């Protein structure tokens, strides 16, 4: 790697992580049976939706962190999603199918904050699918735990 390249690399990285640019950065991409076949959501788009809070235990942390974010069904409604299954994809290409019913049956949120701190790709962000695990005993099950997608980047509706 040349010196030039290294400099460029560092500059781009800095620009990407700067918060000013983050507002317009695409956080979530919805594809499949949505408006126009593809909907891209930025932080601003999510800010426009109603925000919710869930305090719940998780399988990978201690205690009951407070998660803040928007309801998954609100996101899907905004994209006019029509389908039975949502295929969630994470940054690391973790892929799992989630029945659409989950989002209507439970107040599942796309969390952007944990205990008031913004989630980042270096943790489990930018978006973490969080189920109200402590409110419904049925959710304390590996079959649901697998649907808590960290570092959510895309949703495919079918």
């Amino acid at each position, binding site marked *: 790697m040349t010196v030039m390249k290294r400099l460029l690399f*560092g500059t781009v*990285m800095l620009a*990407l992580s700067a918060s000013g640019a983050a507002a317009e950065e695409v956080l979530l991409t919805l594809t499949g049976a949505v408006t126009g076949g593809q909907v891209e959501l930025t932080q601003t788009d999510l800010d426009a939706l109603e925000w919710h809070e869930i305090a719940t235990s998780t399988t*990978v942390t*201690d205690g009951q962190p407070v998660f803040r974010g928007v309801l998954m069904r609100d996101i899907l409604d905004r994209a006019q999603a029509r389908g039975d299954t949502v295929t969630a994809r994470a*940054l690391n290409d973790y892929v799992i199918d989630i029945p659409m019913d989950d989002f209507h049956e439970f107040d599942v949120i796309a969390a952007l904050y944990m205990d008031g701190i913004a989630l980042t*790709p270096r943790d489990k962000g930018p978006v973490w699918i969080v189920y109200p695990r402590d409110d419904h005993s049925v959710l304390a099950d590996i079959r649901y735990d697998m649907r808590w997608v960290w570092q959510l980047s895309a949703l495919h509706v079918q």
Partner: protein
Amino acid sequence: MNRLGAHWRYAGLGALIVVCLGLLVVAAANIIRIERQMQISATQNMTWIFGQTQIEALSLSSALSSDASSSEVLLRYDLLVSRLNLLRDGPQWRFLSEAGLADGLMGWRDGLLRLDPAYGGDPAALKAHVTALSTALRQKASQVMSREWQVQSERLDRLRKLHLLALVAIMGALISGAALAVLLVDRERRLMRARVDRLRAERLQRDLNRERAASEGYRRFADLIAHQVRTPLAVIDSAMHRLTRSGKPPTPEVIRAKADVSRQAVARLIRLTDTALLMARVDRGAVAPELACHDLDRIAATAIEDLQAGRRVTLRSGNRPVTAICDPVLTSEILANLLGNALLYSPPDSEIDVRPLFSGDMAMCDVCDQGSGMTPEELACAFDNFARGARHRDLPGSGLGLPLARHLARLQGGDLTLKPREGGGLIARLSLPGKVVT
């Protein structure tokens, strides 16, 4: 069973019940604990988490080696950091610490953060660090897996132990429950046997009483024979003896007088046997009354005439006819019986009233005498077979008259009662189903 024994039996039963319920509670508690532990937790998937960390290290290493875009490198870097952060979180960190694998891991993370490409970290140094990290992770991966299987096996062991405990408790409860059931069944059988014994004793007592009554009846019957049969026979014997005595032959007057006496004695005997025969027929249900509407005044009048008792008996009819639904023959028999008693037990110069009347929807006929009446004790057993008032042992009578009369009254749906008359004497009241003539 003595009281101490009963006390111990109850204590034993109580202990069995407590043991049975206690064991069931233990079993239920264990089953609940098993149910709670029968969950797979995502935390337990440490092999996967650790594997993911390794993959991200390799991916970053490969991105740094190739001509990947800076954004791709940054993404891979972020993902590797996020996996190391995940390993640092509560449950995962505890797992690694317990497995002795946590040492140095955070050193690798700190080193990685110092070479952050977003802040101009040296890519070459970063690549070297990541390569070394991936080697270190590879060495630990198998240990993580073995630790994970060990943890899972221990969990299964715990579950098996709980399961076994629950099973033992249930078996214990089963055994104590069976013992309880055996004891209760045994108890029930004893109670049943006691009840059967009691019933048998009661039946024996009843049989004994009946036997006593029967033997009392035989005794009275023997008494009756002794007094009531023997007396007329003696009278006849004496008359025959007088007629056949040697010496002067009896005059025609004497013969007639003795014949009269003998005939009266024979009549008494016949009446006695008639009564006894009728009683026997009534007893075995061979008498069927022919019920119809009859004028009670007329039946009473005929009965009085048949007695040929002269003016001592007065029929005092009311101002309207008394019609009864009855069998006239049986009713006459009853009235003749009552009148005979009244004549026998009252002074020869006293009057006897016969009063047919209505009371409610029953037709009555009262026979009132002015004799000495009956004591309460005599009234109490007046209707027993062969019962004779102690004061009247020597008067003719079978002791069957009143019982027979009451039987006949009841056969016709009526009854016969006795009560003392005010001013002395007795009122015998025959009641029969009445029919008001309009």
